[in-house]
């Protein structure tokens, strides 16, 4: 119980109130947009975007300066009775990534979802701006929550905000895609809830930090984590639970696809990491983590091969998302390093998160530029892209820069991420994952080259765009693609941020295969009642 008192000795840390604001400001923006409606909804959202971005920066600086997590106890009640918000290095990095991508999406969507002139309010723009705020608030809560049930609610809010984004245009096939997405997500959420119930029944608390000190490798923990992980994988669209993703992400409007593909799937991935790295880090030493990365390897191969075979650009990008999600799960068996492989374990965690972050930027940039090409051409058939490079040079350049990061060519965030993962593979002596990564990289090169070769080719006669593409929207896509490239140029020391506030878990991995709990078996006694006896 030493770790418990160390974590919750003080109350809220200085700067902890920022965490409440990070969730509260987008929520307030969402409610205000809905209440005000019309043109004011757009203005409210555009006002909230920079505020939220500033808050994310403030949290990153706060975590970096203090060298430890920021904690806030809601209402002053400490866990296990109360709920805590907790920002460690991983949360801070994901908060900032989310804020940047959401702001870019907002700027891009200003032209895509304006209130049409002449009417006071139109349905699609209003819903888009309200849901943009809702997705942001839910994601921030996923990254900051410290209670498994609180995280369940955050995950559900994320799903409810993401599903309608798929069918904004109301066409029958997008409605079907949204419904299929929702059905997968419901299965996922109910399995997660069942796991939560079992954990509470077994250990009497749902606070991640307290659970870490009490959970033991026994049947109830294995069943619970199996159910929760399966549920989360359905929401993350990891192979073989990926069937819902391509129609949903390819059918949504480009601004919504950028959010869905870049950010929303990372929410449930983040919870898998919380569960496996923070709640029961000893699980990483076991064969179970090999199952996750086998699924990841399957996702890389199947996603890439299917991407190669697509005829439509947006579907190709959606299948590429499935493949790139696979890389995220390769870090699980590699991060289980014993003391001798501490470097390898750090490299795997950093590489995995760098992959998540650079994929968020690159994939958002890619969906945005694909949307611009589709608007200018009136279609997104890959075979007929010839000449688009002359017509929209900035857009195609943004697409190419994002593609470099996804393939993993230097100098890009994707390259550094895959390099770190390869280093971890070699340190851990699990060379077969390196083969999968190399084949995945080659296949990614193949499907991206298919698009770029056609787009760069000169048409017989210059194409005339069906509608003019504003330069500002091209620049937003370019900026995101450059963010993904620049990640590769940041000195690696900066990624020490990811390890802030995680010492307890890495020590537990290093010391013993399972944490030795000082407390006697307190099963079936809720933690908040235990003191009263």
């Amino acid at each position, binding site marked *: 119980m030493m770790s418990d008192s160390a974590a919750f000795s003080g109350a809220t840390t200085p700067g902890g109130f920022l965490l409440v604001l990070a969730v509260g400001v987008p929520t307030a923006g969402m409610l205000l947009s809905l209440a005000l409606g019309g043109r004011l909804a757009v203005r409210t959202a555009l006002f909230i975007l920079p505020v939220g971005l500033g808050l994310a920066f403030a949290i990153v600086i706060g975590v970096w300066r203090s060298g430890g997590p920021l904690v806030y106890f809601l209402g002053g009640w400490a866990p296990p009775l109360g709920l805590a918000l907790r920002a460690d290095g991983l949360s801070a990095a994901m908060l900032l990534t989310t804020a940047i991508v959401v702001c870019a999406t907002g700027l891009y969507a200003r032209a895509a979802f304006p209130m049409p002139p002449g009417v006071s309010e139109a349905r699609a723009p209003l819903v888009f701006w309200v849901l943009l705020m809702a997705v942001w608030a839910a994601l921030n809560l996923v990254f900051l929550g410290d209670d498994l049930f609180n995280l369940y609610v955050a995950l*559900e809010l994320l799903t409810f905000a993401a*599903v309608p984004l798929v069918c904004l245009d109301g066409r029958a096939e997008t409605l079907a895609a949204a419904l299929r997405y929702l059905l997968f997500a419901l299965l996922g959420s109910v399995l997660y809830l*069942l796991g939560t*119930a079992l954990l509470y029944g077994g250990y009497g608390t749902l606070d991640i930090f307290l659970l870490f000190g009490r959970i033991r490798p026994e049947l109830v923990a294995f069943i619970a984590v199996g159910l929760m992980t399966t549920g989360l994988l359905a929401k993350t669209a990891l192979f073989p639970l990926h069937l819902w993703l391509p129609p949903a992400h390819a059918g949504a409007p480009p601004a919504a696809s950028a959010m869905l593909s870049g950010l929303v799937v990372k929410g449930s991935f983040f919870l898998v990491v919380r569960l496996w790295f923070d709640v029961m880090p000893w699980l990483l030493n076991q064969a179970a983590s090999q199952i996750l990365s086998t699924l990841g390897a399957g996702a890389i191969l199947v996603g890439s091969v299917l991407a190669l075979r697509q005829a439509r650009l947006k579907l190709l990008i959606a299948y590429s998302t499935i493949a790139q999600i696979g890389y995220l799960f390769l870090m699980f068996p590699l991060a289980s390093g014993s003391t001798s492989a501490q470097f390898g374990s750090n490299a795997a965690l950093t590489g995995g998160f760098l992959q998540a972050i650079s994929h968020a930027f690159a994939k958002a940039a890619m969906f945005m530029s694909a949307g611009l090409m589709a608007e200018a051409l009136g279609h997104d058939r890959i075979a007929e892209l010839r000449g688009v490079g002359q017509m929209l040079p900035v857009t195609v350049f943004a697409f190419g820069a994002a593609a470099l990061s996804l393939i993993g060519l230097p100098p890009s965030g994707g390259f550094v991420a895959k390099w770190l993962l390869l280093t971890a593979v070699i340190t851990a002596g699990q060379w077969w994952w390196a083969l999968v990564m190399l084949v995945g990289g080659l296949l990614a090169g193949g499907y991206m080259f298919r698009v770029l070769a056609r787009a760069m080719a000169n048409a017989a006669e210059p194409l005339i765009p069906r509608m003019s593409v504003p330069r500002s929207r091209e620049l937003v896509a370019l900026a995101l693609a450059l963010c993904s490239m620049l990640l590769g140029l940041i000195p690696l020391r900066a990624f020490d941020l990811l390890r802030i506030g995680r010492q307890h878990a890495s020590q537990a991995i290093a010391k013993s295969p399972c944490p030795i709990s000082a407390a006697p078996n307190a099963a079936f006694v809720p933690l908040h009642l235990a003191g009263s006896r």
Partner: protein
Amino acid sequence: MSAATLFGVCSAALVGLGLYGLIIHPQPLRKILAFNLLGSGVFLLFGVIARRGAASGLGGDPVPQALVITGIVVAFSATALAVALLLRLFHETGRTTLNADAPKNSSDNPPRKSPDS
């Protein structure tokens, strides 16, 4: 058999039935109903856990009861959203199945003639 064990077995049965229905039925409406059955099983499990936590002298552990209330609200909203989407799909296409316009990857689930329609 104590009441808590009996209800625990019931909740396990509900979860099993719901999961079975959610996986094998291709019709979205049946999937939604199965999801609700599965959800009821999970809520019942929370009730069982609240009762077992009450061994320390209280009538029941209030935390799982509070979780159940939230869970019911979430499941209700999820059902409402799913039914609204399904209704809209029906108005647009006259169908309540997902298979006709499915992309080629999920075509391994051919539309089934439902015997009860």
